[in-house]
């Protein structure tokens, strides 16, 4: 019999918070409320990262997602007039078919995980030399093993920045 311990309670609390706030994100009428609930989801996911000993990603999640992307979202929501859209129907006509399709997809995912979950119970042995800390290990991965992808990602960010400015510009000449 599995006894409940503190990490499991924390995991269930974070999971429940993430799932409930995610449901709130897609059901709120006001887009600002959706954004606030999404921030709570992102914080819960950051907590899950912390439980997985991914301290660097925990910090990146809060700084980049909550501090960067969500501010961008809130900025655009306030820039765009949503008063008309808030009074209209929030869900498209095919919502029933969409929900059924998504639930079938989830049933497949859950069934697949359930079939394989006995294999996940076997913990692979830790490597002998695991003395470096998390941020150091990620830095080695980023700048040695994955140097070319990092350069490509920086190029992608540059293109996205220029593209966003060009598209949001008032006059295109």
């Amino acid at each position, binding site marked *: 019999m599995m006894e409940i311990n503190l990490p499991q309670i924390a995991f269930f609390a974070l999971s429940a918070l993430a799932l409930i706030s995610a449901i709130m994100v*897609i059901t709120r009428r006001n887009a600002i409320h959706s954004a606030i609930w999404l921030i709570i989801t992102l914080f819960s996911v950051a907590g899950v990262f912390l439980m997985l000993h991914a301290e660097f990603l925990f910090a990146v999640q809060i700084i980049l997602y909550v501090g960067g992307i969500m501010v961008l979202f809130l900025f655009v929501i306030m820039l765009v007039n949503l008063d008309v859209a808030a009074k209209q129907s929030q869900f498209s006509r095919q919502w029933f078919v969409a929900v059924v399709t998504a639930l079938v997809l989830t049933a497949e995912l859950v069934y697949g995980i359930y079939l394989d979950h006995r294999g996940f119970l076997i913990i692979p042995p830790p490597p002998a030399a695991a003395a470096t800390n998390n941020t150091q290990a990620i830095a080695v991965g980023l700048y040695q093993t994955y140097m070319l992808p990092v350069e490509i990602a920086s190029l992608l*960010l540059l293109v996205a920045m220029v*593209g*966003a400015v060009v598209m949001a510009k008032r006059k295109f000449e």
Partner: protein
Amino acid sequence: MIPVHWYLYLGAGLFTIGVIGVLTRRNVIVILMSIELILNAVNINLVAFSQYFHSTNGQVFAIFVITDAAAEAAVGLGLIIALFRNKETVNADEIDLLKW
């Protein structure tokens, strides 16, 4: 110790909610937020397996996913601003100029 498949169930749940949001909502901004939910679900899986295999490759890949999310949010929100300036709407089903 939390078994790795619990994280996979959590990722599957978040992914489903994101898919339902993308497919059912009319507001383009909420659709973009649902895409962020989907990317977060993927990140949970990547980090869970990274921890399971005692390798940081999954976390490095999660950083690339976050980079993509930032680029996608910037371009998507720029598109929404341009769209709202031209059509005065944020409803996805009213943007049907290419649909005949």
